[in-house]
């Protein structure tokens, strides 16, 4: 039997969060998302959480499981090896209801970094050709599903809502590393300040939280070196 201790908060009723225990007898083959759905259908229909694809693609079911940000759909209960599983909303952002947090700051910051390819050459007839080698440079950051596990794991994000955070910064690196993108200077200028790359304290929490194993910390460090490289070569 596994005891699920679930964070509950209803803005109409509660002033403080409550933790409610739900016991599930047989967890064989269950993911944490399956468990939450079981709790909702069989024990407490008022439980709120986000989910959609069940296969680690949509990025909507990220929650804190035993203190670590993970995708609920991608985490086997038995693999946690614990008789008590604490499920809480992602940290850092305001809680709307139970496990549902307000992503407005996350997407606000994401939109602010021009998260799309900007090319100054005329559109070609078919596609913009890129070598396999050049594509490899951003293979990892291109895997991002925007679940916010990284950004909400970052203590700097918890204390400063202006900090771009690892997801938005990794997106910047994804386009800086893309040979087809033509606004590298603008992108670097955008993050070369105290709310961008220089705010990171290199705790590696973001990279450890990423369900797609993107090294977000490395992406931020890559941007730092790119900025410095350009600053020094310009001076010479």
């Amino acid at each position, binding site marked *: 039997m596994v005891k699920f201790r679930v964070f509950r*908060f209803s*803005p109409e009723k509660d002033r403080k969060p409550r933790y409610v225990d739900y016991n599930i007898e047989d967890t064989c083959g269950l993911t944490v998302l399956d468990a939450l759905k079981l709790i909702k259908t069989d024990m407490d229909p008022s439980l709120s959480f986000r989910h959609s694809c069940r296969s680690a693609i949509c990025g909507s079911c990220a929650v804190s499981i035993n203190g670590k940000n993970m995708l609920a759909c991608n985490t086997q209960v038995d693999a946690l090896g614990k008789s008590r599983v604490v499920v809480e909303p992602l940290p850092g952002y*305001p*809680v709307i209801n139970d496990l549902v947090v*307000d992503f407005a700051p996350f997407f606000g910051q994401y939109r602010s970094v021009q998260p799309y390819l900007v090319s100054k050459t005329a559109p070609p007839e078919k596609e913009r050709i890129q070598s396999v080698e050049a594509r490899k440079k951003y293979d990892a950051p291109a895997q991002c599903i925007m679940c916010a596990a990284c950004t909400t794991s970052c*203590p700097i994000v918890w*204390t400063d809502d202006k900090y771009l955070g690892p997801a938005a910064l990794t997106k910047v690196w994804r386009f800086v590393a893309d040979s087809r993108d033509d606004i590298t200077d603008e992108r670097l200028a955008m993050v070369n300040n105290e709310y961008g790359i220089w705010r990171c304290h290199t705790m590696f929490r973001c990279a450890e939280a990423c369900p797609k194993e993107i090294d977000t910390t490395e992406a931020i*460090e*890559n941007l*730092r070196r790119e900025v410095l490289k350009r600053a020094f070569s310009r001076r010479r």
Partner: protein
Amino acid sequence: MLKQSGFGYYVRKIARTWKETGTLAHIVHRVTGILLVVYLGVHIYVVTQASLNGEGYESILEMFRDPLFAAGELIMIMGGLVHGLNGIRLTLFDMGIGLKHQKAMFWAFMVIAVAVWFAGLAIVWPVIGGG
């Protein structure tokens, strides 16, 4: 909506996950950094005052020999070593070195800190009146 941010939230939440090596390194670095600022401030003030009045100088040196005071100094030296060595670790990451081995690097630098501390202790032991 229930707020999940701010300084108090940071302290409570980070205290719950201190066992993550990268987080532990951050906590240790921040605490030793603040301790160093406070300590060096007081230290410079005291030594300056002492050197300004000739008679008090000896008595202040006498205070430095107090075992409790010496123990405090030794703790501060450990703090300085830990902060400095972890600072080098963080700088190496900025240079693109060792990002994939951050945990091992933290513990390796801490072993160096302890080793240097003991070597230093062996040197100053006679001076602080231990031997």
